[in-house]
Structures are given as structure tokens and as C-alpha cells.
């Protein structure tokens, strides 16, 4: 259904009495941090919640459910204000339409751990608006003052009589929406703040949940695309004879990204693709070598130059004057997101319409990009957001890579196609967390406190070359390259400091990877702080607490994690603990990791004790899941995952050589939520950031080997 036709359906539902829907205007209020976001489009009334005569309440989700639990969290917001029973709640992904633009970013998308806080007002408000209309409908029925009526469990009552929301839905839809509504005080909450189980569980445990890759309809073909073995390469020529001879293969078509084999099913398409012979024009991508890149990055970090990201005093002079100097380099490799569901996208072109089925985090961008390729207006591009089999940033590409490629294939083939990536395609297909290097030199005073800090960061910019460059790269500084350093509370008290950034370019495509820049900045910062503590002969928790005196939220989280981990007690024999605390996406996470080392020198993480301050906690059960999951995601990169390139080719291809965390590696993670009235932050990503340093610091405590490269490998 297109956004337009969906609206038509909603409008007709008004006429036919199918229930109540709430038109809603985007609140002008956005977080201060997003002040730079573009001006919101004029409000376009649309549906966010539907109350049906059968009593069901359907929430239209403006964002994508990729495991992070907003399917449940946003429904909780509506249910709370609507005073309905939790069993009445249903959820659907909203279509792609301007009214569903992200309240802070101005374009429909899911990312940056922003959904819960950015929708806190909007989704509660639509719930309250619906409640107000249902109450007024009941008041009219009973010829009484709405103020005398109460609501609970999906009913309106005057104390004597009661009417269900389903019974009132039709009458309520005839009323005008309220101009303003009062939202409940936190103390009145019955649903928000309470551990609440997921609404999407039933379909995800019986095989019925529909992911993008599950889309099937008559006439749909499956396509696999042979892409360049090096980044930026193009097709010189190809021979499709053998591919076309494979049973089930119907067409072989060239598209900008390579050669697509269109077949009756995946297996035929795969065999067909294996049989293709392609001569590639590889271009400069063929010379990319990740170890040479790292060497070059080291030289860059040591040299002068680079864009200045932050500066106070004269760090050079202060370093020379300092009692003692501690210096170190930290590096992290390219990483694939490795979502369990490989990239895929289904496209049907018909007349002047383009219909897309995909698990995407970026409907707004995908719609515009697809429109250009299909040659239709954006409003003629319908996007059916399917459940995402993991996102982690990979499904929010500013280039709409996997969506635009599928539109190209559908256009070239002239039939509806589902383009599916193999795991190998996914692993070698780019959009990686970029390789990064940090060089840090710190001058300390007699007590071991930092007084001078010179910090060079080198790595590809995620935003360079994208439509967001203009908005988010200022004076050569991509904010996502330095987040977690320039805003570090540790640096506040350092008298002289200079943070510089080099953003070298190369053909490898890079992207945000769960917690983005913090994946490397938290590793570098929290490792260096730990090195300073040990160098000063101080306890790592106590040393951090000394530096964080002016940051009460950090301090509270740090102390809570340390206390719950039994930081002062000796760990079990053969184990040691390490700590890290880091703020990202508006939330503070402190972690204590307890590790041992196996005889074969592999590192085993037994326990992670985690304290989080994410401001108001909407669903503690979901927060616990996100923190456990974010730590597991981070641990893959701490212990195993690494992509290397030689002669432009990625050397890893599947889970056998791009290893990720498995069940037997999973530590026991305990999550402690700090009671907090701070402004709400995110929770999907923040717990990924500090785990690398917490583990590296524990390994140091155990072995006295300071590991400064990820994944961690003991000598």
C-alpha cells in the first residue's frame, strides 16, 4: 500500500466507522543537541494510533524494529496515556511518509540510539489525545461532564457505568482532536518504567515474523549480484553464457554495482553467479592494504598537522614541562556489522510506481534515492518496512546501497526482484566500521593527574562524501570521528590539551557501527586513563573518581558498577577485574569486566557488571536486554572480529574467519540501572563502547600486558 493509499484507507475508515485515528502534529520541541537539525517540514496530519471497534489499539511505528525493542517501548508510551490494557496493543511499521520524519533529525530513520527519547513526547501525546476524545465521546453519550469521567484498562467509566474504547471508537472519531493535552506525571505511571515483555515475541518464536528476506509473491524473482572484488571497481566486460545455462536462471543484467543474475530462486541465482565470468576494471581500490594503511596512520599521528578538533592552552609546552610523560597508540580494525539477516531488498516497478520491501533503518533516504533511480516522484515510492534481522547501523546507509542496487536490478530486468546478499557478499561488501588509530601523549603532575594531553586521531570519515557532510562535518572535523574524546569529562580538568584529526580517504566504504566513533574513542580514552592510574600507582576506580569529581553522573555509575562487582574484594583465583566508564548517546555506562586467560592464551570474560544512567528508564527489561546485547556485540570485536585487506581484497568471508561471539563465550552480565532524573539518553548503543577497555584493563591487571590493538591478542 502506498503512503497515499494508506491515507486514503484511513480517511475511508473514518467514513465507514472502522474506528478512531489520531491526527497529530510534530512537536516543535527538540533536544538542544539537535538544534542544528534542519527545519521540520510543516506538520502533515497522519495516523499514529488507531482504536478499532474490536477494542484493539494499533500503534504505527515511525521507526524500524531491529531488535532494540521500540515496537514495545513506543506502544508502552501510547498505552500509558491512553489508559488501555496492555493486551489491546498492536504495532505496525508505518509507511514511508514525511509525517513520520524523525522528530530530531527531520528525516524518517532509526539510529543514534534516539528513538525512545525523541518520541517520548509525540507517542505519549497521541495516546493522551486519543484518550481525551474517547472520554468526550462517553460524556456525550451519558450527557455528563467529561471531567467527571475516569479511564482504566480500556474503559471509560463514571463510577457506575462503563463503556469500552471499542464501543466508543466510532463516536470518538467524529470529535475534533484536542488542541492540547496534559501528560501524566511520572509518579502516576502504571506501564512506563515497569519491566514489560516484548510485543513482537509471539511471531518471532513461531516462524511467522516477516523479515525482508521472507518476502514472496507471484512473479517475484531472486537476484544475486556479482560485485567488484575490490572497492570502487567496475565491470569491463562479462560472459554470461555459462550462467544462463544454469537451470532456473532467467536473465543476466548489468547494473552500476556489477552483474546481476536473475533466477527463479536463490539457489539457481547463486549457481548462475558462480558461473559468470567477469573482467573487472579494478582502479585504485586494488592497492588498498590494511596493514600499510595502519602504518601510514601511525606516521600521520606522529607528524604535525591535521584538523584541530579541540584545543586549550599549549599542549606542546605543557608536555615538555610535565613531570612525567605517558604515551601510547591504540588501533582498531575494519569491522563488518554482520547482521544475522544478510542485506536484501525486494523491488516491484509498475507504471509510475515503485514498491519496496526491506528491512531498512533509513526510509526517508531510501525513498528519495529509489525515486531518482526509478524515475518516479518520491511519493510514488512505497516502502514496506519489514522486521530487520539486525541493523547495528548497516541498514542506514546514506547511499541507500542495498536498496538502490535492488531498484537498478528491477529496472534492468523488468521484473519484480528480491536481491539477496550472501554472507560472503555481506562480509566483503564494505560499509565497515573504519580502521582507526589514536596516538595519545599525556603529561602528568606529581600526583599522577594529567596536566597536558596531546591526542592525534586518524581514520576515515563516515560522513565525508555523503549528503550529511555539509551538515555534520565542520572545519574538517567529522563529529563521529572524535565523539568520546573531545567531550570527555576527563579532559575538562586537563589544563593544556589538543585533539587533532586526520581523515584520510580511500575507496573502502565505511559506516556507523553500533556506538559509532565511541567504538574506538572509548577504547583509547579508557585504556589511557587506566595506564595513567597504574603509572601513578593508584587504584583504577579511585583514580577515575578523582578525575570525575565534576561529573556526578559518571561518578555515580562508576561507583555503582564497582560496588556491585565487588571491586574492593579479591577476584577468584586466576581472574582479574578491569573497569571503564564512558558516556555516549546521552547515557553513561560503567562496566567492570572479570577475566581469566586460558592456557592457550585466549581471553575468557566471565562476568561484566554494568551500571547505566540513561535518564528516565522506560522499560527496564528492555534496557537489560540492550545492555547485555550491546556488550555481546562489543565483545565480538574485543575478542575475535577483524577485517583485513590485501591487494584491495577483504581476506575474510564468512563466520569461520570473521569470528563473532558465541553462546559459550557469553559472560554473565548484570545490569544495574541508576535511578536518574537526567535527560533521557539512548540505550541501544552506549553499552558497546566501554567493554573493549574494561576487558583490556582487566587483562592488564591479570597479565601486566597492555594490549592496545583490537581484537585483543596476548603475546
Amino acid at each position, binding site marked *: 500500500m502506498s503512503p497515499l493509499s494508506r491515507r486514503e484507507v484511513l480517511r475511508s475508515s473514518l467514513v465507514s466507522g472502522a474506528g478512531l485515528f489520531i491526527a497529530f502534529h510534530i512537536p516543535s520541541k527538540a533536544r538542544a543537541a539537535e538544534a542544528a537539525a534542519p527545519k521540520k517540514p510543516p506538520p502533515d496530519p497522519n495516523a499514529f494510533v488507531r482504536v478499532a471497534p474490536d477494542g484493539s489499539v494499533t500503534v504505527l511505528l515511525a521507526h524500524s*524494529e*531491529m*531488535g*532494540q*525493542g521500540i515496537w514495545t517501548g513506543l506502544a508502552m508510551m501510547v498505552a500509558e496515556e491512553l489508559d488501555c490494557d496492555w493486551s489491546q496493543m498492536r504495532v505496525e511499521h508505518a509507511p514511508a511518509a514525511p509525517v513520520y520524519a524523525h522528530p530530531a533529525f527531520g528525516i524518517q530513520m532509526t539510529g543514534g540510539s534516539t528513538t525512545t527519547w525523541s518520541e517520548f513526547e509525540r507517542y505519549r501525546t497521541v495516546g493522551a489525545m486519543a484518550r481525551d476524545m474517547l472520554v468526550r465521546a462517553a460524556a456525550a453519550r451519558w450527557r455528563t461532564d467529561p471531567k467527571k469521567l475516569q479511564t482504566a484498562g480500556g474503559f471509560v467509566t463514571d463510577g457506575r457505568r462503563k463503556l469500552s474504547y471499542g464501543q466508543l471508537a466510532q463516536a470518538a472519531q467524529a470529535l475534533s482532536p484536542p488542541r492540547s493535552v496534559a501528560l501524566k506525571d511520572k509518579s502516576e505511571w502504571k506501564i512506563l518504567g515497569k519491566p514489560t*515483555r*516484548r510485543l*513482537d*515475541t*509471539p*511471531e*518471532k*518464536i*513461531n*516462524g*511467522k*515474523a*516477516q*523479515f525482508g*528476506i*521472507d518476502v*514472496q509473491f507471484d512473479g517475484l524473482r531472486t537476484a544475486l549480484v556479482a560485485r567488484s572484488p575490490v572497492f570502487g571497481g567496475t565491470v569491463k566486460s562479462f560472459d554470461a553464457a555459462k550462467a544462463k545455462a544454469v*537451470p532456473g536462471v532467467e536473465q543476466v543484467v548489468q547494473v552500476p554495482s556489477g552483474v546481476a543474475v536473475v533466477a*527463479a*530462486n*536463490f*539457489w539457481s541465482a547463486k549457481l548462475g553467479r558462480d558461473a559468470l565470468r567477469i573482467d573487472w576494471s579494478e582502479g585504485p581500490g586494488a592497492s588498498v592494504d590494511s596493514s600499510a594503511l595502519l602504518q601510514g596512520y601511525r606516521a600521520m599521528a606522529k607528524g604535525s598537522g591535521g584538523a584541530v578538533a579541540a584545543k586549550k592552552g599549549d599542549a606542546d609546552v605543557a608536555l615538555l614541562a610535565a613531570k612525567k610523560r605517558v604515551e601510547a597508540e591504540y588501533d582498531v580494525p575494519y569491522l563488518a556489522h554482520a*547482521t*544475522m*539477516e*544478510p542485506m536484501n531488498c525486494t523491488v516491484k516497478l509498475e507504471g509510475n510506481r515503485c514498491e519496496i520491501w526491506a528491512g531498512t533503518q533509513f526510509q526517508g533516504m531510501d525513498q528519495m534515492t529509489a525515486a531518482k533511480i526509478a524515475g518516479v516522484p518520491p511519493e510514488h515510492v512505497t516502502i514496506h518496512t519489514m*522486521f*530487520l*534481522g*539486525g*541493523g*547495528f547501523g548497516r541498514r542506514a546507509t546514506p547511499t541507500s546501497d542495498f536498496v538502490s542496487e535492488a531498484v537498478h536490478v528491477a529496472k534492468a530486468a523488468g521484473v519484480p526482484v528480491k536481491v*539477496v546478499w*550472501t*554472507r560472503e557478499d555481506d562480509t566483503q561488501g564494505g560499509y565497515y566500521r573504519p580502521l582507526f588509530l589514536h596516538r595519545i601523549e599525556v603529561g602528568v603532575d606529581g600526583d599522577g593527574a594529567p596536566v597536558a594531553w596531546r591526542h592525534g586521531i586518524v581514520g576515515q570519515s563516515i560522513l565525508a562524501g555523503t549528503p550529511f557532510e555539509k551538515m555534520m562535518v565542520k572545519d574538517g572535523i567529522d563529529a563521529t570521528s572524535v565523539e568520546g574524546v573531545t567531550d570527555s569529562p576527563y579532559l575538562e580538568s586537563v589544563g593544556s590539551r589538543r585533539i587533532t584529526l586526520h581523515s584520510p580517504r580511500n575507496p573502502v566504504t565505511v559506516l556507523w557501527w553500533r556506538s559509532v566513533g565511541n567504538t574506538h574513542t572509548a577504547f583509547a580514552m579508557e585504556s589511557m586513563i587506566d595506564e595513567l592510574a597504574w603509572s601513578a600507582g593508584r587504584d583504577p576506580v579511585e583514580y577515575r573518581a578523582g578525575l570525575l569529581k565534576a561529573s556526578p553522573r559518571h561518578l555515580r555509575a562508576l561507583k555503582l558498577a564497582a560496588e556491585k562487582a565487588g571491586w574492593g574484594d579479591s577476584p577468584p583465583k586466576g581472574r582479574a577485574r578491569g573497569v571503564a566508564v564512558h558516556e555516549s548517546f546521552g547515557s553513561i555506562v560503567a562496566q567492570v569486566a572479570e577475566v581469566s586467560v586460558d592456557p592457550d592464551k585466549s581471553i575468557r570474560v566471565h562476568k561484566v557488571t554494568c551500571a547505566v544512567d540513561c535518564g528516565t528508564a522506560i522499560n527496564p*527489561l528492555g534496557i537489560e*536486554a540492550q545492555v*547485555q*546485547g*550491546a*556488550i*555481546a*556485540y562489543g565483545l*565480538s570485536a574485543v575478542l575475535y572480529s577483524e577485517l583485513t585487506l590485501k591487494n584491495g581484497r577483504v581476506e575474510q568471508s*564468512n*563466520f*569461520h574467519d570473521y569470528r*563473532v*561471539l*558465541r*553462546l*559459550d563465550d*557469553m559472560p*554473565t*552480565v548484570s545490569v544495574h540501572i541508576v535511578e536518574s532524573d537526567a535527560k533521557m539518553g539512548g540505550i541501544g548503543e552506549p553499552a558497546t563502547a566501554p567493554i573493549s577497555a574494561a576487558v583490556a584493563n582487566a587483562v592488564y591487571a591479570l597479565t601486566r600486558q597492555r594490549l592496545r590493538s583490537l581484537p585483543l591478542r596476548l603475546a
Partner: protein
Amino acid sequence: MKLLVNGSVREVNAPADMPLLWVLRDLLNVTGVKYGCGMAQCGACTVHLDGQAVRSCVLPVSAVAGRKVTTIEGLSPDGTHPVQQAWAEIDVVQCGYCQSGQIMSAAALLAENPAPTDGDIDVALSGNICRCGTYQRIREAVHRAAALNKRVQR
């Protein structure tokens, strides 16, 4: 070729070497079984073959003729297998993509070993990758399912 899938006889016209996974997904529209790696590394494609957990992505369809194939859709008629109940109770799922495979692996484990230890669970489920990192709750849910099973049997 005749296949026995979730209790029904299904006729398919597939090359002998086509993996069971793609026969199920693309020819029979049984899509609860998932593609994750194609080389028996991730477990997303786990189904039961005569009650044993197998990776359907590397199993040629010719090898399953006449044998009983059970997918997540056929594990229970109404989603109430003890493993599914435990999964719901412990709130295991996140994105959900790997969970069909996780549940099939767990169900096969419990059928053989009604009271698995953590070590048993490690062995049986370490072949199933979850990128959302639901492992801790999976472990808890397997223990919970074992307890539910016991109750049912009494």
C-alpha cells in the same frame, strides 16, 4: 521428489544438490527457517531431521527424501512447545532472525537431555550465532524450558 515437512507430504521439483534450506524457503514457502551463512557456521537454518538438529543450508535435498523434516512452524501447533513458552517468559528475542534456529537447537537438546547443564547447553547451542547477543537469556530460557518440560511430564 516427495518430502515430509511438518507432517505433510510435499512434492517438490528440485535438483538433487539443492540445499534443503532453499527448497523449504523458495519452493515450499516455509520461511521460518533462515539463511545466515550457507556453510553451517551460524545455525539460523536449523531444522529437525527425524528429531535431530541439522543445518539445512548444507544438506542436499536428496538426503532427506522419506525422512521427517520439522521446522519452527511445525514444532508445535500453537507456539506452546515448552521451549517457545520459556522463550516468551524470559523475553529472549530481539531482532528474532536467529531465534527459529536457536529454538530448534534447544528443542533437540531437551528431547535428548531433559536436564542439561550449562556445559551441555554450550555444546548444543554454540553453533547458533545471535548477533543481538541474547545468549544470556537463551541459556536461562533453556533451563526454564527444562523445568516446564518436567512439570508437563509429571
